[in-house]
């Protein structure tokens, strides 16, 4: 299997030796939650020298979904909520979808938005449209299918987020201290590596698009060290087996046909201009916000949760006073503890 090649132990240790020659502190943010999980799964922090600081970024789609999305749904009845599994334990202000299911809400876990379409043949069904560029094309395509089949019982609650504006917002915040980015593999397969050219151009920062195996991640770290040493920040693509400079044009078209850019609220990060996608007017009958008059205006509860600072890389999860005290996977206060991809959950599971 191809992925086994990218787990080769000799090569991993050669890469680690090369990284160990660099003695300066370097702060690298992995934007994507799947990278966070891979770093934990392979315990890469234990193998890296202490001057290599890996910071987990805002790239977990469940984490950044605001509580209002959950709040708007939990009191609905006589409608089926179809969702990806890890939304189930995301805390709203009045409990989770899992709690609401126990209290009578019809919540179904699906693996694909197409499964939700099947449910909508029988019941009024709302699919919770979360995710980044990786997940969005499939959901957009599903809306076009519902349109073609004239499936009036199907709708999507759009809570989509797009990555580049979030990175921009992050870097415009004065508190962030980052030397380079490990850029998402899957998201980049859709949007292409060119989508990050603003990083060197506007912020004088480099980034490497990379895959999810140990050799991918360690290669990216090596490339970022080289950039740092040569003082030549740029966008490089280690994941050429999957990602092209322009990305997947068909998938981009599928998105643009159905969805349009709009401002969006990110849990922990707040309001970010042009960082989300809503449903175009032509497909309005499939927009659950419109159809059920859902209130998704955002009110952030003041719980003491420092998820925003974790997502910005200002603190690591254990530096939050709630971490492992009042906030645990059994009783998550913030979203970063909920999702298996969340920074706090990954720390709780792998790094304590």
């Amino acid at each position, binding site marked *: 299997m191809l992925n086994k090649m990218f787990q080769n132990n000799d090569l991993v240790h050669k890469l680690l030796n090369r990284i160990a020659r660099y003695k300066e502190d370097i702060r690298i943010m992995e934007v994507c939650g799947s990278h966070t*999980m891979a770093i934990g799964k*392979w315990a890469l922090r*234990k193998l890296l020298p202490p001057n290599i600081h890996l910071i987990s970024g805002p790239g977990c789609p469940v984490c950044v979904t605001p509580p209002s999305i959950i709040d708007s749904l939990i009191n609905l009845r006589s409608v089926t909520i179809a969702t990806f599994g890890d939304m189930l334990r995301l805390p709203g*202000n009045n409990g989770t979808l899992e709690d609401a299911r126990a209290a009578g809400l019809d919540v179904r876990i699906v693996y694909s938005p197409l499964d939700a379409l099947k449910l909508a043949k029988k019941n009024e069904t709302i699919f919770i449209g979360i995710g980044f560029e990786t997940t969005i094309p499939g959901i957009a395509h599903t809306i076009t299918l519902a349109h073609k089949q004239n499936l009036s019982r199907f709708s999507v609650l759009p809570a989509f987020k797009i990555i580049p504006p979030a990175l921009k917002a992050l870097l415009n915040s004065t508190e962030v201290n980052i030397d380079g980015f490990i850029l998402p593999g899957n998201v980049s397969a859709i949007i292409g590596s060119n989508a990050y050219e603003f990083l060197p151009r506007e912020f004088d920062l480099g980034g490497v698009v990379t895959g999810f195996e140990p050799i991918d991640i360690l290669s990216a770290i090596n490339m970022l060290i080289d950039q740092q040493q040569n003082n030549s920040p740029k966008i490089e693509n280690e994941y050429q087996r999957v990602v092209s400079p322009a990305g997947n044009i068909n998938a981009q078209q599928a998105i643009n046909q159905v969805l349009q850019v709009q401002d969006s609220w990110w849990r922990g990060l707040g309001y970010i201009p042009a960082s989300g996608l809503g449903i175009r007017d032509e497909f309005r009958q499939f927009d659950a916000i419109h159809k059920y008059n859902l209130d998704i205006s955002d009110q952030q509860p003041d719980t003491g949760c420092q998820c925003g600072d974790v997502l910005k890389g200002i603190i690591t999860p254990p530096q939050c006073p709630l971490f492992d005290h009042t906030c645990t996977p059994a009783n998550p206060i913030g979203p970063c503890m909920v999702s*298996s991809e969340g920074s706090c959950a990954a720390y709780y599971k792998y790094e304590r």
Partner: protein
Amino acid sequence: MPLIINMKDNIITLAHGSGARLTQKLISSVFASTFQMEELSDSFRIEPGLVVTTDAHVIKPIFFPGGNIGKLAVTGTVNDVAVSGAVPAYLLAAFIIEEGFPISDLQKIVTSMQHAAQEAGVKIIAGDTKVVEKHNAEGIYITTTGIGYLPDDIHLSTQMIKPDDQIIVNNYIGDHTIAIINSRDQLGLQPPPLSDCAPLNHLIQAMLKASKVHFIRDATRGGVATILNEVYDDCGLGIIIDESTLPIRNSTLAVSELLGMEPLYMANEGVIVSFVPAQYYDLLSVMGASKYGENSAIIGKVTNEVKGVYLKTPLGSLRPLPMLNADPLPRIC
């Protein structure tokens, strides 16, 4: 601080039935404290030489590749008795059936129960049947109670576990969960993966005859990782599992990567985790001679080097393998 309403503390959610941390919490806070039970066990030695255990079986779908709820109800309870070291002898079975359930399906289920009981060498001796109104249950639920005889010289307990004990599993990890997910959620894997659902009492008896064994547990809900954590909680000895030695099918690895689920946390119905003194290195060949032990492997060891349960990755790095709070959820993308 504003109030965070956490309904989990007030009502039962599915997480309470996952076999992970929340299940333990429920058992200790509601059942064990009220019934004044000394330990949270699913089997009990009612008098010297006599062990009883009980298990309720609910599964969706009722029929799945490699078995059905009836076979599961027999093998699950047989295995619960067998891992205590006892020889299972009798089963009692109680059925809760939904109005409208086809009798032909019931017959298939009961026939499988009989086949599994014959293979295990146990007799089903008594039972009960209740029918509930349509929609008040989903198809059929079966509770089985097992009775077994425990030989005088067998003492399996987490307190027997010593540093340097080797940790052995008898079979591929995760097959049952993959079979159920594929069948329930129509993932369309071809050929459909089979559940490992099987009576393991003959294998366990062969192991006990051939070797000294300190402790055995069947890795059902919560999977192998949960068992290891329960053992650590009980005996306080550290555990290191070597990831490269784990018997896991490539197909299981591929599906679990896709769904973001770890095989070590997946429920099995034909996997036991055994703690065996290091000198009994030839036990693997004894296990390998059994139908349900062909894929046996030493997956790790008990050690004072660490506190807690750790996994050594193929790169040589150690990461914690904690107990989960609830079933892992399939994740987005």
